[in-house]
């Protein structure tokens, strides 16, 4: 609960009003604690169902189409139906020739379901990473809306390094581009963290401003006459292409078209790193302490300012990493339209973090949900006979909004549950 409330504005040195437990709706908070112990999945699950239900109503009312058919088409467009076909197959372990049994057929990478799933997982990577960026700051009591700017900073850095320095060995080039991209992301978020730590500037405002600065800097860099515009076509506002060496290896799918790149494992690793950092290190302990109650943390000898800065910088590292991996994995270039559009993935990251309740597993699953929705409603994957993709992608945005709205108000869901139980008790 206090995770979500951490976003409320705070002035340093101002007396804290009790929040979380205490006099803040104690009965509801008590109930919430029970639900948390029960796995904390009730609210996100109910929220998602409710959001999809309302989305279905919208489909029904505005177009008269059967919402279930539409959802089924989106599901198939996302490639998740690939998981439905279970058999006894095997898979090669990475870095070896050993093959182990696997329930799904990975050798078939050209079937429609497999190709769609590859697309979904490609989107899953930045969604998880930007989700982690939001979640880490949340755990420190901050709301990082700046994922867009941090993602862009990482992407710009990666495309610059990736498209220059020919002759560098592939692995060195990749590491250089990825690390530099992450660091620039960290720096971009660090500005907001620093301002919060030093003068108490609200991170929501500063990160929104940093987003727009990043967008315009991006448009400037790759626009006509910009310093990073491509060398060959002076009339096209696009960057140079990433060279062949620093492109990430594709391990599942057609390398010539678009397959799943190794960034997938980086995102998986990031989920683990996130969990370990928060739950098994001193830094994570301090970050969470500040997130729960900055005054108490200060009293306990924890430097609140330092943790604000560090949490934002780590957040930015995740988002910058997302940008770098997207560039080196499948985009290979940025044009000025991408600057504003592709980076919107970071806003979905906010929904991912909120729905995933800022836990590693939750973010992984919520990321899959939103990645599937995004890909399933894309023009390429959704059958226009069943539902117009342009409409469906707006439906996705709507569902995202509803999810964020309801997750933010878990009191509502708990209240409904509470009332239901009371009614049961009365009738019994």
């Amino acid at each position, binding site marked *: 609960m206090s995770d*979500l*409330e951490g*976003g*409320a*504005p705070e*002035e340093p040195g*101002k007396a804290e009003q009790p929040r979380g437990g205490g*006099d*803040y*709706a104690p009965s509801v908070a008590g109930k919430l604690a029970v639900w948390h112990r029960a796995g904390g999945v009730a609210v996100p699950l109910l929220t998602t169902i409710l959001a999809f239900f309302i989305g279905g109503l*919208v489909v029904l009312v*505005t*177009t008269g189409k059967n919402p279930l058919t539409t959802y089924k088409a989106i599901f198939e467009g996302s490639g998740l139906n690939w998981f439905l076909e279970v058999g006894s197959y095997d898979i090669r372990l990475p870095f070896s020739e050993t093959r182990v049994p696997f329930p799904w057929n990975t050798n078939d990478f050209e079937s429609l379901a497999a190709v769609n799933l590859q697309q979904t997982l490609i989107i899953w990577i930045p969604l998880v990473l930007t989700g982690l960026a939001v979640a880490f700051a949340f755990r420190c009591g901050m*709301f990082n809306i700046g994922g867009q700017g941090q993602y862009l900073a990482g992407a710009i850095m990666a495309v610059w390094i990736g498209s220059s320095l020919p002759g560098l060995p592939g692995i060195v080039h990749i590491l250089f581009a990825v690390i530099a991209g992450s660091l620039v992301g960290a720096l971009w978020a660090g*500005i907001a963290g620093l*301002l919060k730590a*030093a*003068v108490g*500037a*609200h991170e*929501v*405002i*500063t990160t*929104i*401003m*940093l987003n*727009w*600065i990043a967008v*315009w*800097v991006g*448009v*400037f860099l790759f*626009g*006509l*006459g*910009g310093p990073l515009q491509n060398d060959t076509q002076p009339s096209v506002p696009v960057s140079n292409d990433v060279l062949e060496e620093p492109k990430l290896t594709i391990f599942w799918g057609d390398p010539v078209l678009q397959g799943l790149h190794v960034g997938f494992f980086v995102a998986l690793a990031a989920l683990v790193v996130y969990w370990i950092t928060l739950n098994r290190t001193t830094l994570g302990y301090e970050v969470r302490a500040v997130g729960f109650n900055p005054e108490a943390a200060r009293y306990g000898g924890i430097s609140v300012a330092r943790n604000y800065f560090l949490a934002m910088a780590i957040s930015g590292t995740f988002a910058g990493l997302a940008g770098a991996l997207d560039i080196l994995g499948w985009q290979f270039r940025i044009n000025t339209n991408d600057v504003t559009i592709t980076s919107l993935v970071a*806003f979905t990251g*906010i*929904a991912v973090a*909120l729905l995933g309740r800022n836990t590693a597993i939750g973010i992984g699953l919520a990321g899959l949900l939103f990645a599937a929705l995004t890909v399933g409603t894309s023009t390429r994957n959704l059958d226009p006979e069943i539902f*117009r993709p*342009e*409409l469906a992608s*707006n*439906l*996705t*945005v*709507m*569902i*995202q*909004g*509803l*999810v*964020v*709205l309801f997750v*933010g*108000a878990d*009191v*509502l869901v708990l*209240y409904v549950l509470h009332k239901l139980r009371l009614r049961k008790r009365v009738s019994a």
Partner: protein
Amino acid sequence: MIDRLRPHVPRGPRAVAWLGILTGLLAFWVELPPVATRWEGIRTPVVPLLIGLVAVVLGAYAVRRGVVRLGWGAMVAGVAGIGLGYLATRSGVGHLDQVVVWSALIAAMLRYATPLTFAAMGGIFSERSGVTNIALEGMLLSGAFFGILAADKLESWALGLLAAALSGALFALVHAFFAIHLRADQIVGGFAINFLALGITGYLFLDIYGGQGTPTDIPEIPDVHLSFLKDWYFIGPILGQLNLMIWLAIATVVLSWFVLFKTPIGLRIRAVGEHPRAAETVGISVYATRYAAVVLSGVLAALGGAYLSIGFVNSFNQNMTAGRGFIALAVVICGNWRPFTAAAIALLFGFSSALAQRLPAYSESAAVLFQALPYVLTLIVVAGVIGRSIPPAAVGRPYKKQ
């Protein structure tokens, strides 16, 4: 009247500092049309250098006498005046004439500032009552869409405005319900409203207008023609035919100030935003006041959006507000939650947008970079370099009735 204004007039070192700031601006101004085009002789770097140095000296004097912030401001203005003035002397007269047309610049500034002003006034009401409103963006967007939709289908711009106001009120009501009754995090809730508005307007826009976009024969909000002003020097071209909404925006600013600071209603709104418990103790309904303020903010923001679609560009596109709501939020903060200050900041943002429109005459890419300037300025203001902005004490905190 004069007696009441007297305490506000700066004296001593403060007056010197303000004089320094104005002198710094003068160093740049003399190198711009109409001055620079009328007297060719002034187009030499020595002139801005001398005037700018005067500004720096005035600033330094003010700093020594203890007026640190304004003094530094004057010194910065002086240096900036020298730099910009020098650049202006290097630029061709033709370019200068093309870019710096003051009356056109100011008229454009008013046009760009209008949606910001409406949304910012809305933001001020909402935040003064203690409810953070980052949903301004979504409310602007809904106003823009439903305004043009109603204007098109009902063939009346007035009904368009009404529909816009209603849609803004509806989104605001949702925001208010989640923020006030459900005590959800207001930033998360506001963010959700932005998503919702983006999805709903985009969905309906495509469903209704499809790929062709909005038709071109939509009734527009009319301009106000003041023919008696036509022949006035300078003022005529600016104020002669402004859109009705621009005049409404100006009226809204004055009204907002009056309501917030000169009426019991305003006192209640501010009390609820500063110390809700105390307000409730004296019999003010915190919930009702906050609901009213948030809904009002939705209505105002949506009117700004409607101006955008049926007063300014006369079409609608998906996500056409493109972050203006967030700028309005910045305007609220930089404006210290005060209507007149916020309106001044909105004009500043509007001016930089107007200038950015014309700068491509010099360099396409530099003009693009210029677009980032307002955001950098906001960052600097929020960082507390230029004055500290102090939010209402209870903004963003849910309140539980006793």
